[in-house]
Structure formats: C-alpha cells, structure tokens
C-alpha cells in the first residue's frame, strides 16, 4: 500500500478517524454542539478529500476495494446526505436529554460502511461494508431507549438483519464453491453467461440468497416486513438515514455488479428482479393506503419507491444505469427533505405522527408546511419537482428496453401513491377554526438552511437536470 492508495481511501479514512475522535471527546467532556460540529467537519473533510482521491483514480486498492469515478460519485452523494442528516439530528436531539453525543459516532460509522460498499469489488468487502452499516444501525434504531416502539424496532431490525446477513453469506459461499472466485465481477459474469446443468442451479441458488440479503437492506417486497415498524420506532433522523444513505449504499453495489442481468430478459435472475420490482410497487402503495401514521405511510412509500428504482435497474444499457442513479438521487433529496420537515413541523408541537397532528398546519406555519407539501408532491411525481423527472427517466428507459407491463404497473401504482400523498396533504390545508395557535419557537437556523437547500434541490433537479445528468453520463461511461 503506497501513498496514492492512502489518498484514494481518504474519503473513508477521514470519517472513521472522526468517529474515534468523537469517542475521545465524549470521554473528556460531553458537549452536544461540539460533537455535532466535529461530525459535520469530518464529513466535510471527507467530502473535500474526494477531489484528492479523484487525482489517483481509477485504482484498485488491494483485491478488496476499487476507487473509480463511480465509487467517488456515490461516496460524495452518501457523504453529503449523511451531513444533512447530522444537521437535522442536531435540532432533534437538542430537545432531548438522552446521551446524545454517541449518536454522531454511530452515524459516521454507518456512513463509512456505505462508502465501503460503493467501493467494494470483493465478497469480503461487500460483507464488511454491510456489517459495518448494520451494526451501527442496530444501535441507532433503538437509540431512544425509553420508548417501547424504539425497542421493538431495534429487536426486529437486529433479528431480521442478522438473518438476512446469514443468507447473504451462504449465497456468497455457494458462489465461491461453484466458481472458485470471490470477485464481485463473478456475479456480473454469471448473470451475463449462466452456466449449464447442475452448476447453473447452484449458481442460481447463490444469486438468490445474495439477493435476499441485498433485498432486505433495500426493503423490497417480499423482504420488506421490518420497514414500517422500524421507520415508526426509530428516531426521525435515523429513519431519514435508513431511507437515503443506507439504501443508497446498498443500491450502489447492486447497480454496479448486478446490472448485467438487465441484458438477459427471461433468465431466472431477471425474473426475480422483475417480481421484486412489480411486487414492491404494488404492495408498497396498496399497503400505504391503510396507514394513518405519517412515518408508516412514508415507510410503505419507500417500499414502492424501491420498486420504481428496481424497474430502472432492469432497464438495459447505460441509460438504465443513469436513470436509476438519477432516481436514487432525486428520491434521497426528497425523502430526507420530507423527514427533515417532519422534524421541524411536529417536534415541539406533538410527539406522535398521526395524520391529525398536521391539521391546519398550513395556516399556522405556511412556509414549513408548504415545503412539506412540495416534498410530498415530489414523491407523488408532480412536474417541476425532482420526483417527476426521476419517474420520467425511468419510464423513458423502460420504454427503450422495452418493459411495457412494468410501466403499466408503475402508472397504476403511482396513481394509488398520489392518493395517499393527498391524504397527508388534505388535513394540512384544512381550515381549522379552533386550532392551537402557532408556537412561537421556529426551527433553528441550521435546520432552516439545510431544509431550504433540500427544497431548492428538489426544484433544481426537477427543472434543470442537465448538469447532473451530464455528470452521471460521464460516470457511467467511465465505469
């Protein structure tokens, strides 16, 4: 390992060191603001080091990691998202009395896990990345130990994530047994050229087990059962983190090494993805109709969104890859914005997130509620927002491939989606005669700034996508 290797790994080294620094700081003196700004600075330094790393790419560091423009692009996206989550967490925990400083160390470690995932090219690094992420999330999900829901969510996540990891390991073992290679490129190759005879069955079993592990992290149907409970029980910033960073990192691996399946419609693995995609779109949206809790609605909506994302993933060629990347980014911006606004809207007013909590919110706090409405409309895929262009690219990619049946299901299911987003909007805009007056306290300035940036991004990605799209094109051509 030489100095160039170290430079290439800086984006993951810096946040790891920051996490250790935070633990040391806590040992000396607990100071929420100091620790939070330290975490933020660490993420900022890590983001800045991407440019340093960019000077030495493409580069394989040992057999485990590959640093190229693809991994750097995704790392940048994940680090930036994590930084916004940290900003939102600060105001969330500022009101609480728990030991809140360790939270930031865990968030940093989880982010490191996802960065490892984007750069992994080996079974070992894949597993390592997923485990760093998962173990941090076990603690994060039940971070507010006082609540019964938080404990339930934590246990549920622990048991199911551990099980799915076991499936993943077993699948990797089967693939290794059959091919004798632990390179992730093997998976890409198997999906492109399936073996014949008995070997094919073992390979398929291996692929399916790996998919189980990955599908669990993405919360695609039928591996979605943990999602609503965990979304509901976990603290809001953690929910935002799971929905954006955690899923983004896992999807980056999937997109890089499994995308070759899209070139082989009709193969068993292809069918597995099609079924996952269609089932996620339909069940996610249908089950969301039954919910009255905003966090649960957004949980089911995230399942449906993974269905859309998998549809983009199934679109052949570079266009499919680009459409999936764009949608992931658009979704992450939107969902972090939505959860962030939920923190700003509901915290201090109410502790529960039932639909009724939002009654007449627009007339009391027009700007925050209006911004929340924008995020919901983006999730619903209304033009001028990021969500619309994301869906537009998916449909375009799917029409070129062509995948007509999934497109039709997307149309139907996203109409169902519109219905439950409207269900959230309706009480917000209700004119309430005797509603409680507006609380004097506004959201703190850093939360306002980050939320304004997210809302602006939703519009920018929805109106002027060319720069980002060009960047994504460059990356997909390079990889």
């Amino acid at each position, binding site marked *: 390992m030489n100095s160039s290797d170290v430079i290439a790994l800086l984006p993951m080294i810096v946040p790891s060191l920051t996490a250790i620094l935070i633990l040391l700081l806590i040992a000396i003196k607990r100071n929420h603001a100091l620790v939070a700004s330290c975490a933020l600075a660490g993420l900022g330094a890590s983001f800045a080091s991407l440019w340093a790393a960019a000077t030495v790419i493409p580069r394989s560091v040992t057999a485990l990691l590959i640093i190229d423009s693809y991994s750097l692009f995704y790392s940048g996206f994940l680090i930036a998202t994590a930084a916004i989550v940290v900003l939102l967490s600060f105001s969330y925990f500022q009101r609480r009395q728990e030991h809140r400083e360790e939270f930031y160390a865990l968030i940093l470690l989880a982010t490191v896990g996802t960065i490892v995932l984007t750069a992994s090219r080996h079974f070992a690094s894949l597993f390592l990345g997923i485990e760093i992420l998962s173990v941090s999330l076990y603690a994060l999900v039940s971070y507010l130990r006082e609540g019964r829901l938080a404990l339930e969510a934590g246990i549920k996540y622990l048991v199911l994530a551990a099980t799915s990891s076991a499936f993943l390991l077993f699948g990797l073992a089967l693939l290794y047994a059959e091919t004798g290679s632990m390179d992730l490129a093997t998976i890409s190759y198997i999906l492109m050229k399936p073996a014949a005879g008995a070997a094919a069955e073992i390979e398929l079993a291996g692929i399916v087990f790996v998919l189980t592990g990955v599908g669990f992290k993405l919360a695609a149907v039928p591996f979605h059962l943990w999602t609503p409970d965990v979304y509901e029980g976990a603290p809001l910033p953690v929910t935002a983190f799971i929905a954006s960073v955690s899923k983004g990192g896992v999807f980056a691996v999937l997109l890089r090494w499994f995308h070759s399946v899209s070139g082989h419609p009709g193969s068993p693995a292809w069918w597995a993805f099609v079924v996952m995609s269609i089932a996620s779109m339909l069940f996610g949206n249908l089950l969301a109709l039954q919910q009255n809790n905003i966090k649960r609605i957004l949980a089911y909506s995230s399942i449906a969104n993974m269905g859309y994302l998998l549809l983009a993933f199934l679109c052949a060629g570079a266009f499919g890859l680009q459409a999936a990347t764009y949608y992931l980014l658009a979704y992450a911006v939107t969902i972090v914005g939505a959860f962030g606004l939920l923190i700003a809207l509901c915290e201090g007013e109410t502790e529960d997130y039932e639909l009724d909590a939002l009654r007449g919110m627009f007339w009391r706090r027009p700007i925050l509620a209006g911004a929340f409405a924008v995020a919901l409309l983006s999730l619903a895929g*209304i*033009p001028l927002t990021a969500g619309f262009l994301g869906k537009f690219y998916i449909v375009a990619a799917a*029409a070129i491939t062509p995948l007509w049946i999934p497109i*039709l299901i997307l149309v139907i299911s*996203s*109409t169902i989606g519109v*219905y439950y987003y409207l269900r959230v909007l309706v009480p917000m805009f209700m004119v309430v005669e005797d509603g409680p007056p507006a609380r004097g306290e506004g959201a703190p300035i850093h939360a306002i700034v980050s939320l304004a940036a997210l809302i602006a991004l939703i519009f920018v990605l929805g109106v002027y996508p*060319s720069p980002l799209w060009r960047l994504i094109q460059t990356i997909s051509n390079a990889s």
Partner: protein
Amino acid sequence: MILFWLILIPFVAGILAWIVARRNATAARVLSLAALALDLTLALGLWVRHPIVLSQQLRFGWFASLTWDWIPQFGIRFHLAVDGLALVMIVLTAFLGIVAVLASWSEIQNGVGFFHFNLLWVISGVTGVFLAADLFLFYLFWELMLVPMYFLIAIWGYERKTYAAIKFFLFTQISSLLMLVAIISLAVAHYHATGVYSFAYEDLLGTPLSPATAMLMMLGFFAAFAVKLPAFPLHTWLPDAHTEAPTAGSVLLAGLLLKTGAFGMLRFVLPLFPGPSRELGMLMMAVGVTGILYGAILAFAQSDLKRMVAYTSVSHMGFVLLGIFSGNELALDGALVQMVSHGISTGALFVLAGALKDRLHTRELDSMGGLWDTMPVLSGSGMVFAMASVGLPGLGDFVGEFMVLVGTYRTSPVLAILAALGMIAGVTYGLRMIQRALLGPNTHNWKLPDARWYERVVFGSMIVGLLWIGLYPQPVLKLVRPAIGRISQQAIQTLAMR
C-alpha cells in the same frame, strides 16, 4: 418572447399576490386583475398584429414561436408557439381569468393570498398548455394546472370538497400518466426511426408507426383528453368537482380545463395519429352523442343548480367531441366555436349560481322562485345565459352546435339526428331552470340585493361576448381557419402517404 410573458405574468403575479395579501386582501385582488388584464391585452395585441407577423412566414404557420434549449440530452426544448387555435384559447383564458377574480371578490374571505396564487397559477398552467409546442413541456403544464386547481377545490370548496378534489385529482392523474407513457413511446419511436431524440411537436408529426402502435399511443393521449373533456363514461369526476368547487374554480374548470381536453384532441390526437383517429372516428362520435343525450337527461333531473349546470357541460362538450371526429372542416370549426361559447355561457352560469348561493345560501332550485321580482338584473342576465346554453339563435352556442350538426350530417345522418335531439332536451332543462328559479311566485319571500358592480361588469361583458359569437363569428373563424385547415389536411395527407 411575448409568449413567455403570457405565461410568466400570471406566474409571478401569483407569488406577488400571495405576499401582498398578508397586508391587504383587496390589493391582491387588484393585482391579480391587473396581471390578467395585461395578459389579455398582450393576447389581443397578438391577434391584431397577426396578419403582419404571419407575413414573416414562420415555420409551420406559427404566428410566433420561441425555442430555448432545456434538456439537450433528450432533445427537450422550452418551445412555445402560437397559431390561431391557440390564440383564441388564450384570449378566452385571460378573459375567464378576469371573470374568476371578479366572481370571487366577495365570496373568498379566507386565505385570500393563497387563493389568488392558485388561481393565477391555474391560468399560467392553462396558458402553457395552449402554447407548448414540445410534448414534454406540454405534459409539464398539463400537470401543473392540476395541483393549484386541486387546492382551489379542496380548500375553498363546499361540503364534500375533499372527496371531489381527490376524485378530480386521481381521474386526471392516471389518465395523464397514460399520456406521458404515450408521449415517451412516441419520442422513442421517433428515436428509433431517426436516431435523434426530440419531443418537438413539428418533429414528431410524421413519425412512422405501425398501425397497432399508433392505435395504442393514440388511446394513451385520448385517455388524458377524454377525462378532461369529459367524454362519457369518464365524466363522473365532473359533477362532483364543479358542484363543490368555489365559483372561481367552477368557472376555470368549465371554461378552461375542459377546453384543454378538446384542444389536445385538435392539436395532438388528430394530426399525430390520423389513421387511428379515422378508424375510431365513428366510435368517438357515438361516445360524443351519448354524452350529449346523457348529460342533457341528467341535467334535467338535478335539483342542485350547480350540478345541473355541470351536467349541461357534459352535454355541450359532447358536441365538441362529435365535431372533432366528424372528419370535416365545418364540424371542426363548429367544435372550436362551441368551445369558446361554452366557455363563456357555462362560465357565466356558474358565476350566476355563485351569486345566488352567496345571497340565498342554497343551490337548491326548489328553494328559489320568483327571484325576478327582487333581482331583475341578475335574473335577466341569468335568462340570457340559460338561453345561450339552450342554443337560442343569435347567441354563441347555437352557431357552434349548428355547424357541428351540419358537419356531422355529412358523415353520419343518424348521429346528427340523435345529437339534434340533445338540443331539444336542452330546451327542457333550460326552461325548467328559468321557470323554477327566476319566474313564478316568490313563495320564500326573498328580498335580496341585485347585482353588484363587479357582477354587472362580468355579466355585461359575457353577454357581449355571446352576442358577438352568435351574430358575427367571422373574426374568430378567420383567425382559426389556417390552423383548422392544417389539422384536417394533415389528417388526410398523412393518410394518403401510407
């Protein structure tokens, strides 16, 4: 550039009105009025100048066009263009926008700023729909007018507003998503044929398509427009939305949003898919006639004034559908005249219904009666609008319906006769409304203030408009002639090429 201003003025004015209203509600109303008046002036200016502009020989017979690169990777451009067809609709849009602002002068007292914001954004979106010459842009505006309209109904509507607003949104949403899929497939087909991505209307016109594909794509477009129009049996959102919406919302819905459906068929369905339009023509005409009769019969059975007017819309828009698919220019002209005059007459009836509701606090015909004695101006204008809606010669609707009937008779005498029956049914509901609400004894002893100044302005100008189209429709016909001619020519020529 003027085309961009037409969209931008209401867009910006909407935001300003929201801000201004925090201090002074009347200022927001005046500001909205001024912005729309400016819009109307610009549009009329374009109308006056169009012979000069036309001599510049812009591509495709546009009076004016504007193209900015937007998403070059997909050949998506910010491309606006106006021809006679679009210009007429834009003048109507600005005019009905003014009417909508005046009609809500005293009705809306809560959230005045946000109300005018939504109202102006609907206008902006509708203007964009009429001007867009890029299919992606068209879809964008198409969806954009939906959200503020939803808020207009859901916040300022009557008793069942939530239900009506959500129903309206969902019907429109699923059908427009189908259109989006059709738009994208068309662009992809164009890409496969030429190797270039483009969403420009001019580029996509001659895209070679297999008959089966063309049929599916045409149905995708048709779904979106048929829901908006509305064509039977996709009309069920309309009575609910119209009834529950505030007056301004009903005016915009009936006057403009329904017209975007008809406009879309004229602009996109006929020229882009001449083959399927011809093949399905008979079916579409039958659907139109069904709508005419069904709407008229249901209108007769309503006791709620707004609901009655809503069903007359279904009936009148049936004439438009019939005219569009009759396959000759006379009927197409008729459909266009009908679009304009229905926008005015139905818009006026909704303003009337709103004015009555404001005074009587009811929309039930049974609770009215004898209103003429206490409100002569209001009732007199009401009778004019009811007569226009019935199809009295000399008023706008008659011209449109007559031309459609004559045109249809050439293609299918049977359907023309059935459609003419609809006009007779129209007389029954029109007279019933006049009889029940305006004439007869004043059994409830209503003593009410007559029309206020802004109501007089609205009714006066709308009567003038109806008389103008009824007596001298020539300027309108002359303006749209080249556009209509091109539409029917394209449909025929492209067919001959195959």
